[in-house]
């Protein structure tokens, strides 16, 4: 039991820096958290891209709408193409969630999830989506300067933010605006003016991609006149704007603040927390934007493990479902089940609501989403009947995502393996052990009694573990980490 108490820090780390711990991981781990953090940052496996579609498919997947406009596709061919594209993106989504749930390289995937929300992007060409996702994953723990440059040159992002249409004689400011407002400085920072955006947009003219889906600089569309950005004047190009943005300390402040909110707490108003973030941001800036260094400072700080921080964060839908999968070693037999859950709970990976990403926190929770979250263990683990239908967003290209699949979710799950992790726990301590493994807060008396009542009498130890687990996962407390 003492080990369990000691392991609270570990559980916290696994949940915040990853997608939870399996009981095995959690009960057997005896290293101090610092060592575990080092391993998480160590990139033991090396970066593995996720691939569901060949890169040379980019041309073929020129968006169907464009092909229609050109009259180059008939109705059935278009329908087929739309379906194929959506399926590829769905497969990529599922592969990514499965990667999160695998327990490998969890901090990379966790930060990739953060960067996906930060550099939110949503396009229909699966090759572009795949490339964008792998860029975000590759640089997730690397250097923010590299990440910013790489994402800014992603065909998916250039398309999403209309830079393909940003030309010398007809500038489009969308990309330049979002780079400052959402990617680096922040809307309310007061660090840039409309004039800065105008000239930055001119500097980004010519940034685009070719029919093979590669970044290109189109010199003939570039405005090579003088621009004045943040008080500096020169014949700036896109790369110069990125450099000028990185030179501003506000970029480090803004990124550090967002990472703190993602990993630690949304409460950042107290003077203590403000100075904490300021210090982290200064070091981040001095390190030339070394993300791993910043993460190490956060994940090994004493305040990160403060009991007030633990269990204070609402899991996002993807964290919730990937966490259940990882903890239980569970696999969905139908891909559509995973998409259905994401859709119903309001977070479909690779389809963020807009360039600002998912608002997160309490925005995940309303009457219907909370009831569904609490029903989820029953649906997934006891084949409860699915009676909900998420609404369609009206886009013909995403109709596939609103499908429910069958009325029952079929999963593969080895309960024996799950149970065996608890083999050394005495029967009368099983409840405590399971609760400590699954729930980030001490349970109150009412909740304990209710769980025991709900789990009911069990004929065997195995059944008891199963019933307690399902009941614990249905608690509001399980929505937190």
């Amino acid at each position, binding site marked *: 039991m003492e080990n369990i108490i000691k392991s609270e820090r570990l559980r916290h780390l696994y949940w915040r820096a990853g997608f939870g711990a399996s009981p095995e991981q959690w009960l057997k781990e005896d290293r101090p958290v610092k060592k575990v953090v080092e391993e998480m940052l160590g990139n033991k496996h090396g970066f593995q891209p996720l691939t569901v579609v060949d890169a040379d498919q980019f041309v073929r997947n020129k968006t169907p709408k464009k092909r229609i406009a050109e009259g180059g596709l008939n109705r059935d061919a278009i329908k087929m193409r739309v379906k194929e594209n959506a399926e590829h993106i769905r497969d990529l989504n599922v592969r990514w969630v499965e990667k999160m749930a695998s327990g490998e390289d969890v901090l990379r995937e966790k930060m990739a999830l953060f960067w996906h929300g930060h550099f939110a992007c949503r396009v229909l060409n699966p090759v572009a989506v795949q490339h964008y996702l792998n860029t975000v994953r590759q640089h997730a723990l690397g250097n923010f300067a590299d990440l910013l440059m790489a994402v800014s040159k992603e065909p998916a992002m250039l398309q999403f933010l209309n830079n393909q249409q940003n030309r010398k004689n007809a500038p489009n400011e969308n990309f330049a605006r979002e780079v400052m407002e959402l990617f680096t400085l922040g809307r309310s920072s007061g660090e840039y003016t409309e004039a800065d955006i105008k000239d930055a947009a001119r500097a980004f003219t010519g940034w685009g991609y070719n029919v093979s889906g590669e970044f290109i600089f189109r010199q003939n569309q570039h405005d090579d006149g003088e621009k004045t950005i943040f008080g500096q004047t020169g014949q700036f190009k896109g790369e110069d704007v990125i450099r000028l943005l990185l030179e501003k300390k506000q970029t480090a402040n803004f990124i550090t603040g967002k990472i703190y909110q993602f990993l630690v707490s949304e409460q950042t108003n107290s003077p203590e927390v403000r100075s904490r973030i300021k210090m982290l941001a200064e070091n981040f800036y001095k390190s030339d934007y070394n993300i791993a260094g910043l993460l190490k400072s956060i994940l090994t700080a004493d305040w990160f493990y403060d009991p007030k921080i633990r269990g204070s964060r609402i899991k996002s839908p993807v964290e919730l479902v990937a966490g259940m999968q990882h903890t239980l070693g569970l696999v969905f037999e139908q891909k559509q089940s995973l998409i259905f859950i994401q859709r119903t709970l309001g977070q479909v990976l690779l389809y963020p609501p*807009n360039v600002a990403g998912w608002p997160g926190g309490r925005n995940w929770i309303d009457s219907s989403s909370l009831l569904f979250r609490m029903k989820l263990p029953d649906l997934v683990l006891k084949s409860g009947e699915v009676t909900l239908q998420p609404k369609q967003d009206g886009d013909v290209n995403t109709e596939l995502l609103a499908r429910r699949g069958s009325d029952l979710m079929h999963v593969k799950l080895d309960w024996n393996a799950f149970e065996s992790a608890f083999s050394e726990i005495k029967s009368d301590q099983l409840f405590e052990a399971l609760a400590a493994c699954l729930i980030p807060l001490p349970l109150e008396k009412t909740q304990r009694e209710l769980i025991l009542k709900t789990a009911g009498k069990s004929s065997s130890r195995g059944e008891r573990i199963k019933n307690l687990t399902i009941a614990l996962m249905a608690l509001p407390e399980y929505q937190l980490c």
Partner: protein
Amino acid sequence: MMIPSFLKAYELGQMNVGAAGSKILVVIQLSGGNDGLNTVIPFRNDIYYRERPSLAIAREKVLALNDEMGFNPALSPLKELYDEGLVRVINNVGYPNPDRSHFRSMDIWQTASSSDQYLQTGWVGRYMDAACSGAGGCAPHRAVEVDDTLSLSLKGNAVNGLALLNPKKLYNQTRGGMVKELAQTSSSKTPDNLGYLYKTLAETVSSAAYVYDQSAKSVHQTKGTYPAHELGKRLKTVSELIQSDTVTRVYYVSISGFDTHVNQAGQQERLLRQYAEAVKAFMDDMKATNRQDDVLVMTFSEFGRRVKQNASNGTDHGTANNVFLVGGGLSSSGHIYNQPPDLDNLEEGDLKFSVDFRSIYATLLADWLNADAQAILGNKFPKLDLWS
């Protein structure tokens, strides 16, 4: 059963409001971008016929509303309502710097933001927030979306609306598992995220019970007859809740499928017919129960479509669109609020807006729901003169 104190406050607060006589707004969302030009057709306009050689609705088929404009023939049930003076058409509704992506433009309509602004709450949600501090109370069921999931429109800062496909289904959900027992423990929780989850749970259980009890003790089934399709069923549920005298002030329903890039005609007609049948059945029902002047239906879509048809007998994403208002005691003169779209004066092939959608919201909030439109919308938008 112990009722947590914050629930008591609003349950008491509700007693003076709601019930028969109060004004109710029903929002119908057409998802996918309904083609406004083939919904209200400018049948004297040569440009319309030139740009849509295979998609234009022939002059003789149009259900004329005046000398220039008429409904798509699939809207004949709506035309009957129009002839009774119950329908108001507002043309050219949109917003500056229109966004042609579905989800972004829908976001803008649902949050009532500018096109370069990202808000996390919806306009109906903020209406509920505002009502929270007043006599209306803070219950989720003040705004009900007839659906399984809740739209951003109905999400507020202090309170979210309630999504339910029907009262019994939601009620049963709150009776399953440990939901009800857990909700009863909410009063002891703190104002952190755990407290927020329990507060939401308690409100859900309470609202579900309220709506279910209310509908059980008064009207089980409306006498009105509704078409059997999904929108028909959902408006029937709205009608039954209205007839149950719930304190709900805003209802929200959506119908999807308007993204007609390919072979538009059949698809759009089918959807428009469903829409018109359902609204006609609903208004007839309101009339029969003497509520037609208390209930106002607003219909919108996230954008209209391009003037020129594409090469696949469909239309691509456009900008300004028409909005319909039905019922609500609108004056019977001047069914068409403003000028038809000006097809001579386009912006890169798209219609220019002349009425900001937030002006419609402002009018409905202030003149219909008696709320502080400026506070809710975050800006002052000129109101439309709808009731004079």
